[in-house]
């Protein structure tokens, strides 16, 4: 075990963590707005990777260029989700909300399995390929660019939510739905925007990951699990918390896998989750 291997693991974990952070940010944004956890988040990620794959396979569009289309598709998907499912269960009990989004996740995953079979697919010869060597550390190019794009998207999301007028309206709705409506901010529209942006984030992450990750119908489950953990770790509803939590999870995953045993990496993340929520139930940066 040399320091180079550990450095390598840290770099890998950091790059993965940035992707988790963006996926979790979408989840957190939706939760902060309407206190609904989207248990279909992993399936939305799967959809975005498949959209990227099909655009490549049918139209020969490289995943790098199809990202805007993927984002739009996913945002549209988010608006549909809000319109057909979420707006009916806004006032329901938490249990019903969990069950409804859980049902959505089963539905999307099994439809995908029916349409596309559970085969593993990957994008052949994308533009981003190969690796670069920095000192003694090897960095895969697609992984590097994926994490950089995710970081950029994250910063963009953060600036959007804190600086623009729509973002402030979103925040107002998150804080007090009724007070915001009195001030002329239509909460229903804000929710739809929230879903569109939340799933748009997933679109970015999925589109970039399609470059180097295997694409199959169950791909979302693990990512969604880590995203849930990241959101709870960072504190439900806090976007900046997701960045820290995502990076922590990425590092724990890769360092734990290196130092102990890679097949139990889920357990290490779980232990971290338990430790944090038991000692700090509202998460690292939580409001609740």
């Amino acid at each position: 075990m040399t320091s180079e291997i550990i450095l390598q693991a840290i770099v890998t974990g950091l790059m993965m963590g940035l992707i988790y952070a963006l996926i979790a940010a979408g989840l957190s944004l939706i939760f902060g707005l309407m206190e609904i956890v989207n248990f279909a988040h992993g399936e939305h990620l799967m959809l975005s990777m498949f959209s990227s794959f099909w655009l490549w396979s049918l139209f020969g569009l490289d995943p790098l260029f199809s990202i805007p289309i993927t984002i739009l598709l996913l945002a549209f998907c988010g608006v549909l989700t809000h319109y057909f499912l979420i707006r009916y269960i806004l006032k329901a009990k938490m249990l019903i909300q969990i069950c409804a989004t859980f049902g959505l996740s089963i539905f999307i995953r099994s439809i995908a399995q029916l349409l596309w079979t559970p085969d593993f697919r990957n994008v052949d010869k994308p533009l981003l390929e190969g690796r670069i060597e920095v000192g003694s550390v090897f960095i895969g190019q697609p992984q590097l660019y994926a994490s950089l794009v995710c970081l950029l998207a994250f910063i963009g999301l953060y600036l959007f939510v804190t600086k623009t007028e729509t973002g402030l309206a979103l925040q107002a709705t998150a804080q007090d739905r009724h007070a915001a409506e009195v001030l002329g901010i239509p909460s229903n529209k804000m929710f739809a925007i929230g879903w569109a942006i939340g799933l748009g984030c997933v679109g970015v992450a999925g589109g970039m990951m399609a470059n180097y990750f295997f694409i199959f119908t169950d791909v979302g489950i693990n990512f969604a699990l880590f995203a849930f953990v990241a959101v709870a770790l960072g504190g439900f509803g806090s976007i900046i918390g997701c960045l820290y939590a995502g990076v922590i999870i990425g590092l724990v995953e890769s360092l734990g896998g290196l130092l102990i045993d890679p097949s139990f990496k889920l357990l290490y993340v779980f232990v971290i989750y338990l430790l944090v929520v038991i000692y700090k139930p509202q998460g690292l940066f939580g409001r609740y």
Partner: protein
Amino acid sequence: MESKLIAAKSEPLWNTNNKVISIVGALVVLLFTIPLFGLNSFYLHLFIMIFMHAVMAQSWNVIAGFSGQISLGHGAFFGIGAYATSFFYMQFGITPWISIFFGMFISAIFAVLIGIPMLRLSGHYFAIATLLIGISFQVVFQRWDLVGAASGLWVTMTPEDSWIALQFHSSKVPYYYVFLIFFLITFFVVWLLSRSKLGYRLRAVRDDPQAALSLCINVSNYKIIAYVISAMIMAPMGSLFAQYILIIDPDRVFNIEISIIVLLITVLGGIGNVWGPIIGASILIPISEYSRIYLGGTGGAVDLIFYGLILMIICIFRPNGLISLIPKDILERKKQR
């Protein structure tokens, strides 16, 4: 006021509507006589699956419906039960009749160990933690060589039917009766629970933890009690399922689908109601088995599409489950005039 209180206290707990008693009695008799009609083994299998899933859903109903904690990893206890009987039978030759109780005991211990730190979490935090627990159990069992790792346990077959080893190869009828009896016992126990002081306290914990606390109900203790009871109901079903199929592996008995289907059945039938899981299971299991026969079989998950769709529709239109379609006065106790 005083006289009403005395009347309420003198009323026995099991005083229920005569109509309900006679309907339930008739149904029980019918269920006991069904194998005599000479049904083929598919229908027996269907009934066995309905009983099994009804009990599993009932187990989830105790923790989620009565005490309001949403567990998304309940398959863990199912798997523990399944592994307990198979492992003790194969290693030490202990009859499943005894090791069912080992399974219950181990599940109860795990429920306490998991419950003490985690039931302090509330709402979404608990749901996510249990989701992780269910998957962690699967991951651990997949790599645990003592219990066969990923290939699982293949229970040694007895050459002939045996009540001691709880294996029947020639007919499904004995399995039918075993599952039926467990089903009836579980439902009776949960029905008593729902009407006991414990049941009312659990519902108080669910509806308003702070008010419950102010009435000297130790909220976290009662949540743990509910979790333990729920785990102890789940484990025997895993044990019986292992005896029924005789091959278990982590992907089957710790599958996340188990945790999903118990949730689905309960929500479909009516959560927090003793009858909900029965209604849910007897509607959903036939749908799933038939759709698997006519539409599935090629790896397409058609039955799962139905599950997802049904779950969403129920959540939107009937959040209280199908039981809310039945007029209330049939199910409630007769009003004292």
